[in-house]
């Protein structure tokens, strides 16, 4: 039984020394049209989003949907309780008006917007995910210290060109990560 024979390639990992090198390489990856790849850095690099060609986040739509549902469910809840299920006159006020239902609906808007944001973000990031083959790679540990990485996954349709491209960049080391 040979583990080497059954291991499938997971990705190509390229190691860089400076943010400028990794940014220049990211631009090349973006222009080569890779789709399943990522950059790892110990700190945020301004301009990396544009260099990678990352599109605007879609999380806002989850936030909006959550807020929308929150507002109208708050209004409906109060209407149902005060006007329909248990009508009770308080302080000579109407049984239902959006005026007094507003503070609660407003809180519901915020609550469900926050839920939408949190769960929408998790969904779009593919979370929860308990394991990634990169965790086994010894060099990759330096991604939280002083080294920058570009990782192109084997699932990328253009994976065959990946090694050629990465070796042409300022990468110090390019290695295959196995599953």
């Amino acid at each position, binding site marked *: 039984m040979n583990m080497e024979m059954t291991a499938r390639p997971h990705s190509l990992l390229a190691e860089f020394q400076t*943010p*400028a090198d990794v*940014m*220049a390489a990211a*631009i090349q990856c973006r*222009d080569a049209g890779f789709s399943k790849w990522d950059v790892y850095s110990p700190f945020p690099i*301004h*301009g990396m989003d*544009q*260099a990678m060609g990352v599109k*605007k986040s879609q999380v*806002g739509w989850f936030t*909006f949907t959550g807020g929308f549902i929150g507002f109208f469910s708050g209004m409906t809840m109060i209407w149902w309780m005060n006007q329909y299920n248990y009508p009770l006159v308080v*302080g*000579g*006020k109407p049984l239902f008006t959006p*005026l*007094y239902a*507003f*503070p609660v609906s407003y809180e519901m808007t915020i609550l469900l917007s926050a839920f939408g944001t949190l769960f929408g973000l998790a969904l779009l990031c593919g979370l929860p995910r308990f394991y990634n083959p990169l965790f086994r790679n010894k060099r990759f540990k330096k991604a939280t210290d002083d080294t920058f990485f570009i990782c192109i996954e084997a699932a990328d349709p253009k994976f065959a060109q990946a090694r050629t491209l990465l070796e042409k960049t300022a990468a110090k080391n390019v290695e295959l990560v196995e599953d």
Partner: protein
Amino acid sequence: MTWFLSLLACAGLFAFSSVSVGAAAEHDTAAPTVHTDASTATTNTPEGTSDHHEAAPPSLGQQFLYSYLTAYMFCLSIVMGCFFLVLIHHMFDAAWSVPIRRVTEQVACLIPVLGLLALPLLIFAPSVFPWMNIDPATDHALNVKKAWFNRPVWTVILALIFSLWTFMAFRFRSWSIAQDKDGAAIWTRKARVQAAWGIFVFAFTLTAVCFSLMKSLQYQFFSTMYGVYYFAGSVWTTLITMYVVTLWLSQPGRPLEKVIFYRQKHDLAVLFFGFTVFYAYIHFSQYFLIWNAAMPEETFWYVDRERGSWKWVGMLILFGHFIVPFVILLNQDIKHNLAVMLPIAVWAWLMHYVDMTFNVMPVLYPRGLHLTLLDPLCWFGMVVFLGGVFWKNYLKAAPYPLKDPRLLEAITHHEIPAASQPAAHR
């Protein structure tokens, strides 16, 4: 040239007004004014039975003074909004707003001009403010507020506040200009100290001025939130004004071409969006608390504003001042789409004017919205006049703080370093 024309226009307006205001003053001494009647009626019967009063149309002088007051409160909003932007810039040691700070400093220095423009309101105050014609002994609501609401004290307070504002605004500008020469950090430090105590002065004095000039039109009213309400609308209008001014000044060949980037416009638009919500929050809170407590000495103010077509003006403020801009500005990218932002800017100015009208004009026209030619004339004259003075001052000094310690950070911080990119890509 524009500046000269605007001066002419204003001179014309003043000449025109002085004739009719003279007539108004006579009318006032002869008989109590229309709106005095209306407001005493409201005191006695706050639930709003003053409809039986046959309101005679106001005299031309009075109409002018009210149109003038509405325009005045509009212009004061933007000047004080810019003053506020200078204050918070220094308080928070901000970097992003350095390139636009000279513009806000120069607008804030229009305060003494506004002080002069307030003179007609001070001189003909009894034609504007009904309480000046009432004996406090006969009116409980006025009697309890007479320590402030009597003509000498009221006038002196306004004069003191405008002097203090002028002092502060001029110090901010002179320190900023001094830094253009030597780039010393001491000027930033001085401004920060003034901003720290100045923000408290700003909060109390702006409240006092809008109580004096706008809220006291219906002196019986109580609302501690009124100052914040005026402030929220003011800064809202100021931010979109600054957005347009910044955009215009950063076009090729104009003074701010090399220092204004995506970031300044983005931050101004985001703050504008924030104040859209803040204004709605404050105005809703004022309305909601008064509605919930249902005390006649507070509710009458809104009862007056739900009469006749004023109700629809209120609805216009609800939808036009908040809901429509809010929904449009939710989208992040739209904050850079000029085809949307420029119409919104025009709309925001209109909405703020409507808001001021909603506060001032129901006193003169209790039965509903009534526009006259004097409204746009006063507004236009004052805006063009102040704009002209601003432009003249702005050209005298450097267009932005040349040697501010944070200037470099402001213009480079979030931009992609060119060196890290291959030439082919940028």
